[in-house]
């Protein structure tokens, strides 16, 4: 494949540009929906990574790297760090590791919002999953070129 763009379908490219933001939004929705309902950081991260991989297929690897802006390996490290940090607050309150800490926020228009350390953990997982999948797939795609 000297010029991958020749083999591309126009349909894929057009729908791809629409799908990319939708999928990213959907992945955030999955991330926030998690904990009590089906969803969470893992599945959300997979959806987000799939969105970026889709983008990679209808443009190219370099464009996909530009889209992510940071190196996937950084996402991996920071995600893991955030996930570990989310377990620590309980320790300072004399509770075991990973004990959930909750607080209620009064958000205008939404009403009461309950946020806590499990969300932080999920965000960490979200980043780790995106980082892992993209590290693997982008490396493979580059090796193919």
């Amino acid at each position: 494949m000297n010029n991958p763009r020749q083999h591309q379908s126009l349909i894929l490219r057009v729908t791809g540009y629409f799908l990319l933001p939708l999928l990213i939004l959907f992945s955030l929705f999955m991330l926030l929906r998690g904990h009590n309902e089906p969803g969470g950081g893992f599945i959300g991260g997979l959806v987000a990574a799939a969105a970026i991989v889709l983008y990679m297929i209808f443009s190219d690897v370099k464009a996909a790297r530009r889209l992510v802006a940071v190196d996937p390996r950084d996402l991996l490290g920071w995600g893991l760090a955030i996930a570990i940090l989310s377990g620590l607050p309980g320790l300072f309150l004399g509770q075991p590791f990973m004990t959930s800490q909750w607080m209620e926020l009064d958000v205008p228009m939404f009403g009461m919002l309950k946020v806590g350390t499990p969300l932080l953990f999920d965000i960490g997982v979200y980043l780790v999953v995106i980082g892992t999948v993209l590290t693997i797939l982008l490396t493979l795609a580059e090796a193919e070129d």
Partner: protein
Amino acid sequence: MNHGMALDILLPILIPLAAAALSLICWRSRALQRGISVMATTGLMVAAVVLLVRVYDNGIQVMYTGNWPAPFGIVLVADLLGAIMVVLTGITGLATAIYSLATISKAHEHYGYYPLMHLLLAGVNGAFLTGDIFNLYVWFEVMLVASFALLILGGERAQMEGAIKYVTLNLVSSAMFLSAVGLLYGLAGTLNMADLAEKLAPHQDNPMVQIVAMLFLVAFGIKAGAFPLFFWLPASYHTPRVAVSSLFAGLLTKVGVYALFRVFTLIFPLGDSLIRDLLLGMAGATMLVGVLGAAAQFEFRRILSFHIISQIGYMLMGLALFTPLAIIGGVFYIMHHIIVKSNLFLISGLVYRLQGSYDLKQLGGVYRQHPWVGILFLIPALSLAGLPPLSGFFGKFIVIKAGVEAEFWWLVAVALVVGLLTLYSMIKIWAEVFWKEMPEGSTASVQQRGGTGLMVGTVVALASLTVLIGVAAEPVYQLASATASQLLDPPGYINAVLGDRS
């Protein structure tokens, strides 16, 4: 519950995990990664020793992750066996980290050597400290994923060949392990090991329970490198960097052995069952096949790999005989073996640094050129073969004495013969590598790179530990004895985790 104690159990898992995250964040800087690696493994070793002292003084320590009460949440449990294993992980981890400074190339470091190493240590420690059978599976996977990547780091042809066998057999084993956990959950409705032990105690004769126990035996048997499904080990362990080989040789199979000790003392205590007979047979065959395999090899690290297998046989023999003395022997053997085996691999790397080959036929005259390397090799080698007063003698002595007391004469005979053959194998390495003249037309050459001092330092430290375990065998025996009595007292474990309900 006491907050400080909970942290003691957590740190051996949290430190390597945090180190993995940090070194991933700093992946652009070699210097930072190296610094983090040495500091984290040092911290890990200190934390592990603190935990062991705490468990020795105050009994089994338990932490309820996320403050969920047992048996509903995941518990971390540190009993003496777990704590000893964590200390050994700390020692091996620190030795590997320091040795890596001198031996791991820039390219390997660039592809994430240090984060993977920390992840491996986190997985190993997690497996030693968890009190939940499904969580054990998860830690096994963390460890395996990291080990897959470490094994092929560098991407040489031999590494890929070895990795295919390694990955395939370990995935088969994982699948069996997972099926067994699923069936167990279907039978008992719980995953907490203490709760399982209590619920299954009256139903040990139930055929379904025995089938599940058999699945665990096969799954952990593969991971431990026991006969008959051991061939992934000699196919792969000689292919990665020496520091990686050493870490694998010291720790990975021992996680399988640990899991066997845990499951077959706590959840399915070995009585006069079929499984015990099988395990006895496996122990004998593992010893014999491993040592015979080694006799046919002429590659330094392959010989050592086959000896890992044969040594696993002694540990299994300790478990399978299932008398208090035998368990003491098994635990003692694990302590001795991890240090000796890691060290022998590190020495093979040192010889490679000096002469540029692992092939016994290409090597020679190391003793004439560097007598001190010869001495350093002899300490762990003779210990492995079981010569007094080194640590291996006491390990073998206790296990064999237990065999004599239990009147398993054939197993005792096998163990003695295998000891002799191990000595033969070590003498072969000595004669070929250290004693004979450098062969004419040898392609071997000196590998000029800095840091040989660090390598020698690591080897000396581990060799001194081997001597120390031999000289101070009595306190180590006491520790192993306390461990064995904990292992043979499931109610003690159950009460520690679930609270006293008698």
